[in-house]
């Protein structure tokens, strides 16, 4: 079995703060991480490898720095890693990103599962996975929280606000992972040493390596554009409840909530 896992490098939103005066993100010193849902997808691919045998290939589209998460994927146990990088890909929306990733997946070829995270924490769109599936004409199951492998067929559980649904699907298939799927492993010391020792273990695909229509990628090939971005007007004033004791503060709070008919 051959599994291709799509990974995105994202800023750790737990540590991103907003400069309220300038309305800009404070990115200084904010670490970049492997997108959490993508890490669940990678873990599941590695679990399938451990239990049934599989070749796991991690891919990421992004700038050179995205190599970091591919090294991490190798250290966790991925067999191969590919960075898809080119100026021509810059400014891509989900359509253009899925177009490039689909072309890279085609080039790698002979896959049984394409695995993505449900969504990335910097954009929250959850669109790239289903768009890749459509471009590659693959069946898809999103919001996956459990997988059982039976030869060339999978029993996949989809976890939603309405309950859990078990689907049966033959490979090849595209799946998107949610955090309920598993708890990602840590890289082993040996894995780290091998992954970081070899400078050349992350392959590179550029525009010239891919069979991709230049009118469908990058900023110009993106159907959606950002018209403007802005900081929402803060319409509430925070009021700190003062008092000499917890009891006094609690009483004041309940009085205020009572005026608002909240208690």
């Amino acid at each position, binding site marked *: 079995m051959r599994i291709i896992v799509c990974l995105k490098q994202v800023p750790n939103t737990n540590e991103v703060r907003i400069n309220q005066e300038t309305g800009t993100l404070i990115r200084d010193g904010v670490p970049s991480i492997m997108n959490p849902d993508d890490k669940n997808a990678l873990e599941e691919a590695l679990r399938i490898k451990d239990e049934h045998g599989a070749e796991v290939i991690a891919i990421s589209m992004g700038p050179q720095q995205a190599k970091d998460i591919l090294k991490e994927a190798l250290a966790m146990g991925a067999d191969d890693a590919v960075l898809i990088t080119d100026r021509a890909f810059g400014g891509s929306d989900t359509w253009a990103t899925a177009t490039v990733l689909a072309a890279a997946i085609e080039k790698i070829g002979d896959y049984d599962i394409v695995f993505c995270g449900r969504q990335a924490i910097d954009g929250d769109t959850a669109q790239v996975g289903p768009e890749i599936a459509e471009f590659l004409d693959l069946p898809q199951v999103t919001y996956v929280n459990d997988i059982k492998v039976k030869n060339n067929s999978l029993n996949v559980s989809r976890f939603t606000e309405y309950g859990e649904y078990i689907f049966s699907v033959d490979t090849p298939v595209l799946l998107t992972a949610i*955090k309920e799927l598993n708890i990602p492993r840590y890289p082993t010391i040996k894995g780290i040493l091998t992954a970081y020792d070899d400078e050349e273990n992350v392959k590179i695909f550029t525009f010239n390596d891919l069979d991709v229509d230049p009118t469908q990628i990058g900023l110009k090939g993106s159907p959606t554009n950002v018209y403007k971005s802005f900081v929402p007007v803060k319409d509430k004033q925070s009021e700190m409840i003062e008092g000499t004791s917890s009891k006094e503060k609690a009483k004041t709070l309940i009085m205020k909530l009572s005026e608002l008919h909240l208690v």
Partner: protein
Amino acid sequence: MERTKVNTQIDLSSYKDVWVIGELIEGKIHPVTLELIGEGKKLANDIQKKLKVVVVGDQVKEVADKLLYYGVDKVYYLEHELLKDFNTEAYTRAISNLIKEKKPEIVLIGATSIGRDIGPRIAAQVGTGLTADCTKLDIDEKDGKLLQTRPAFGGNLMATIICPKNRPQMSTVRPGVMSKAQHLASPSGEMEVIKPDLSEADLRVKLVEKISSGKKRVNLIDAKVVVSGGRGLKEASGFELIQQLANALNGEVGSSRAAVDSGWIESSHQVGQTGTTVRPDLYVACGISGAIQHQAGMHESKYIIAINKNPHAPIFEICDYGIVGDLYEVIPAIIESIHEKNFLEI
């Protein structure tokens, strides 16, 4: 494989009408459908076009009839026995073919797990852009294009997205944000049944079974009051206190990611970007610093109360009322005050 392309200089003026893709849960109309009709009607008025609703299923005429009471111009109901249960490919194909044939200018879909599954697939099949999880939609007065606004980074930044060269302009819209259409005394508009051409071979993903979990699901989405605990609780037993406050306020228990990651509470309680998004009347954050990823899931609450030891915690920037103090003193005092107040009112 032949795939669709965008930016092919299509004739934008040949696209008309605003469409809402309705959603049914177990044969009943999902509330987000009525919210989309309310919003869609506003947009249709602004561009002087018609509002049409699409419902998909097996034997859905009765439901389609009901939708005529919400002031829509037309309901297309797509019927096929293979559409009985939700199926990504069958639903995508049936809806995409109708979009290609009828050419709507705007298509709105609820940002539910179903809408977010088929939305991007439909956009990719039709050949257009899609904006996810919109919280505000407007028509540009200058040229009539759809301005799709969505929150980023926990609502601290907003981005307005456009889809200038492709049609339809497609958005998924967050449930619970738009105002529902009013139920009218008499029906209006017309109905048209569509029988999509589908075969078993179109359903590569097959439903085996639906599992309804025996224990009560945590219903954070519909809760009027949510009381959440975070790292400041310091240990799992702190959630007993959170539960007591939730009981006193008739609310549900939520948590930050830190508390889930520490193993103090199940992930189904997690509020935030990678958890559940809540919009209660009252949100009480106890021992939660308020990282952006948490704010993303709760900043739209009507009233926010924050209790934290650290006076500089970011949660105090977005709260209505803040109390600096040890939550193990403050929460019992609040519970006592609620009981005293209730006692006085009896």
